[in-house]
């Protein structure tokens, strides 16, 4: 192995070591499943390694693959699930958890289409600016804005969240303002496409 190749491997090792945990968290939020998150991230990093000397932004590249791979899996899930005798892991971990607000919100997040969920994860977990989310997803700024807005609307409209909202409203906000951002910042309800 030449010096260049050795240096490249060293840089890749440093990248994986330093960014693994952060990217795994993102992968988990995208998938909702620990095992699949790790598999997804490994697959993405293998692709990143393949093009290591030709990409100048490995994190952006890896994130983009993570999102695309997850969307791909989600699309094919119905087609592939019957091929295995192992029951796919879903959100069963939530069934016995305390069904508090976060659990309800997490369960609602898992019902969102994968690209919409990706927009929310990048925006509200990674705290990326909208323009940066657009770069990662390779889409327009307008798409990011609309997906984020529609995603938040869908979360507000989710039955579990709406029920909690009503409960919190009756306990804490008798004036009628809803708990989940439907007060002064409220947006009109929109028809959304699954």
């Amino acid at each position, binding site marked *: 192995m030449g010096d260049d190749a050795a240096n490249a491997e060293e840089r890749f*090792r440093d*990248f*994986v*070591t*330093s*960014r*693994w*945990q952060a990217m*795994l968290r993102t992968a*988990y*939020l995208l998938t909702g499943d*620990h095992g699949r*998150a*790790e598999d997804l991230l*490994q*697959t993405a*990093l*293998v*692709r990143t*390694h393949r*093009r290591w000397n*030709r990409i*100048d*932004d490995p*994190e*952006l590249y890896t994130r983009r*693959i993570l999102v*695309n*791979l997850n*969307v*791909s899996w989600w*699309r*094919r899930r*119905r*087609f*592939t699930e019957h*091929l295995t005798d192992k029951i796919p892991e879903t959100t069963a971990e939530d069934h016995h958890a305390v069904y508090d607000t*976060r659990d309800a*919100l*997490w369960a609602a*997040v898992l019902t969102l*289409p994968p*690209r919409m969920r990706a927009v*929310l994860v990048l925006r*509200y*977990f990674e705290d990326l*600016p909208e*323009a*940066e989310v657009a*770069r990662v997803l390779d*889409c*327009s700024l307008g798409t990011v804005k609309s997906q984020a807005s529609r995603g*938040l609307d869908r*979360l*507000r409209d989710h039955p579990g969240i709406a029920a909690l909202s009503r409960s919190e409203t009756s306990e804490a906000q008798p004036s009628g303002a809803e708990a*989940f*951002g439907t*007060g002064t*910042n409220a947006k009109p309800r929109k028809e959304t*496409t699954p």
Partner: protein
Amino acid sequence: MTTPMEDRLRQTFAARAATVPEHADPHAAILRRIRRTRRRHRTLLGGALALTAVLGLTAPAILRDAALWPDTVLVQGRNAPDWPIRGSLAADTALLDAVRTRLDDPDTRILYAGDRAGHRVVVAISPRKRSMSGALVLYGEAGAPVGELDEQEPFVAGGSGAKDSEVIAWFSAEGDSPLLVLGSPRMTSVRISPSVAYRPDGTPARVTRTLRTDEGLLLTTVPDAKPGQAEIKIPLWESSERPLRLPWRISTSHDEDASFRADVARAAGAATGHVKTEQAAGLLYSLGSLVTPHPRLTYRYLWGGSLGPGRDALIATVSGPGTPTFLAVQTTRTAPDGSSEQERLGRVVETPDLSRPIGWTTALTGPRDSAAVYVPGGAGSRVELRDGARTIAAGTADATGFALFSPGLPQERLRACEYRVLNAEGEVTHRGRLDLGDLSRAVLGGPDW
């Protein structure tokens, strides 16, 4: 201002992310995965080369240079597995069985099988196929046995996510540049833009044509497709504002690359300030759509410098043979782990006047967007930012002629601001806007074609 929902979402994500367990040695796990992948590639490659020796065929492109195959893959849509099988060979059970046998997967779903225009085409989705999409294309001469068809990995793309929005597309830049697009039976046409032409003022204009499909399939050649420029659009999509760029493999040898980088280093050294060679080369690699290989680009670095810790910017002019010249501004943020991200702005410059100041905004300098102004030869010049009639920031250009401002305005408003350069007498010698556009859009045009 954030809403309660946004705050709760942040808290929920943070709480969930905290449940992710630590991994003792992720790099070792990745290396094991890479070795497994390579073993699988070698197995496939061995089979393909054996076929080459016996039949005198060329090895499938995807296998010949798998490491260079671009990952420009978009996957949306969800209905391809439900499509009916189509094509002149759809009822040829022997051929379909041969496909399943070849793929070693009885659950392979064949979407299209037919002989068209002298070619045999099979499009299938195989659950065991570990490609990103699960889809594959077998392609060869009409009448060829299944074993002699080349296996290609398509990119699968979808539009709005609505019913029938998915397409499976495959393109090869080799030979006569075949393009295959398979959509739902409702897809009646595909729009193709093989290249970009430039108007006299240097703005890009798309060359386009619309081709009809047969049973939702288009099989054609695009010999005039240009690397990094060729795109397709599916009119069926409700939201077809987003074209799909055809993937392209660009291969250069190590020696060519080393020579190119040496040239870039020399050019970077001639700039005002300091231009990092790696970043200078990165700009040119991003402009492969102007011309390939990259050494054929004509470029000049004007300025480079720091925008703060881990932030750098450079200014260059770049053109390809017969293309306009583009002014390019690249801002790079480098993370502590060495990874970096770029923001590239630019516009066409009809007659490059390198003495004119350049102003732009960037979101990569921190939580607040910044405005940057470069005044060639303007060390010590006074620079002001104006929001309408109000001066919102002012400063003095440094020894390289550069000034950076963070006036605390959101980017959209900052982009509408004007910058002014004043001489020692306080006279305005230059004024301009900070709304330097997107470089990619300046070179390739927008999605509206």
